């Protein structure tokens, strides 16, 4: 039984390297009941971290305890853990129901009602008797989820669970996860999409380049992310006059000219820049061609947090 006081998952000084490549570097954190999001760009080490939490990958250093027990080689612990990994894998010759039934059998359960409940939770009653080879990506995700929850685990580890789902399925999934969270289960969800995690998780673990860059309340971290300066490229005539006018704005941190004569602006307030740039161009008689963000990628957001 997990409680709000004892961590459902404890990761202690975990590192993992594959040859000379360090996938995870000295990461420590605790996961408590509720929804915890593991957020990071592709290749950040999220899947390796989750695989170590599932006992599928052995840490090169450090250890992982789930529900107070060492996870590595602890086969009986899988009665209390539900796992859905990122890879979109199923047995194509099986129907959806057969797949969930197999998951139940391998949990030592001979309970068709549990299979019904899991399929209902995944909202796949209508398609349950079709071969999974005919499923859409979203349906495949949901039947794998049904397989992961059929034994009603205390800890649920879901790697990129919303891949391939449509907006309606995302809403349903959010409701489903919220329900499990209220039941006191610990749910770990990884994603590289900020908004996905925002919609689901109470707490986040921000992983960048194999390291834990930040952890804690989602909203506090989101605020920190929103404070970061953005780089914007402005194409205009009279570039030097335009640069001089832009640097006078309070929100602009720096201005430079690139090799093509465009003005590159570092600003903390993109909205103000978008509002003021046309006005400034008009004032100095410059023609404005374009305003484009240069670094709105998730990687740049994460890099900023790491640098902080």
């Amino acid at each position, binding site marked *: 039984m997990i409680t709000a006081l004892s961590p459902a998952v404890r990761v202690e000084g975990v590192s993992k390297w594959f040859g000379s490549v360090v996938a995870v570097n000295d990461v420590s954190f605790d996961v408590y009941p509720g929804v915890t999001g593991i957020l990071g760009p592709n290749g950040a080490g999220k899947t390796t971290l989750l*695989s170590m939490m*599932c*006992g*599928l*990958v*052995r840490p090169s250093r450090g250890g992982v305890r789930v529900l107070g027990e060492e996870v590595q*080689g602890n*086969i*009986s*612990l*899988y*009665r209390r*853990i539900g*796992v859905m*990994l990122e*890879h979109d*894998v*199923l*047995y194509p*010759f099986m129907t959806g129901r057969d797949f969930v039934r*197999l*998951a139940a*059998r*391998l*949990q*030592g359960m001979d309970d068709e009602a549990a299979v019904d409940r899991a399929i209902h939770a995944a909202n796949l009653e209508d398609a349950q008797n079709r071969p999974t080879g005919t499923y859409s990506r979203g349906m495949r995700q949901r039947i794998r989820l049904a*397989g992961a929850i059929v034994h009603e685990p205390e800890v649920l580890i879901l790697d990129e669970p919303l891949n391939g789902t449509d907006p309606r399925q995302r809403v349903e999934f959010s409701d489903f996860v919220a329900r499990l969270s209220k039941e006191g289960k610990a749910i770990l969800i990884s994603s590289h999409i900020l908004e996905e995690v925002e919609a689901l998780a109470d707490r986040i673990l921000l992983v960048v380049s194999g390291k834990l860059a930040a952890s804690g309340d989602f909203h506090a971290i989101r605020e920190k992310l929103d404070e970061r300066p953005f780089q914007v490229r402005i194409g205009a005539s009279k570039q030097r006059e335009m640069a001089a006018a832009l640097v006078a704005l309070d929100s602009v941190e720096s201005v430079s000219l690139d090799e093509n004569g465009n003005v590159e602006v570092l600003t903390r307030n993109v909205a103000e820049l978008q509002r003021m740039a046309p006005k400034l161009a008009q004032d100095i008689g410059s023609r404005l061609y374009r305003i484009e963000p240069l670094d709105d990628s998730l990687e740049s957001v994460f890099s900023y947090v790491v640098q902080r």
Partner: protein
Amino acid sequence: MIAALFILALRQAVTRRKIALLIVLAFLPLGLAVILDSTVAEGGTLIGPVLGGLVISVTLPITVMVLATSAFGNEVEDRTLSLLTTKPVPRWTIVLSKFAASVVVAAPLMAVVAAVITMMDPDGVGNAPVAAAIGVVVGVVAYASAFTWLGLLTTRALGFGLVYVLLWEALITSFLSGTRYLSIRSYIFGTAHGLNDQAFGEDLTIAMTPALVGAALVTVVFFLLTTRRLSRMDIQ
């Protein structure tokens, strides 16, 4: 639980492509036996060149290799292995199910082929077809255990398996008599010879007891190695 794993392994083993390949491998020596049947009338034999030279030395190990190396190899490649290893299932039961599925598919097929070829030979009298079939089953079991391990160990299991079969089993153990105690092919001949010493000559054979002990040792050792490997490997 073991039954569910076994049925899954069996369904994975009997894909259309594999069945087609197995039928070709099985009918190739039978076809050759029919063609060579005329030489039998002139004092030739089918047991030596067809059963020994083709079935036991080539098609049997290749048939088992195709099935057993893919038992884990395909699961590692398509990443379905994690579906099993994140369940509270002892690793040895997963290995047993894969191993048993390979044996259940390959053993009857190869035993029938061996028995039919032996029956076509004038020397294949008495219990010779049964002896050939039992010898072949012993070989299937030993090969299945070794190739299941190889399939989990490397993604190039078929290549390594072919080198082992053609170099070690078919070539080296034919010329260096001392190495026959380490040859699955010799365990097959030894078993068949022990059951019928008239149909199966003494060349290339060892006595039945060391043959059976050797086959059992190979089976158990590789079974344990596969279980150990599955318990310790990183599954991505």
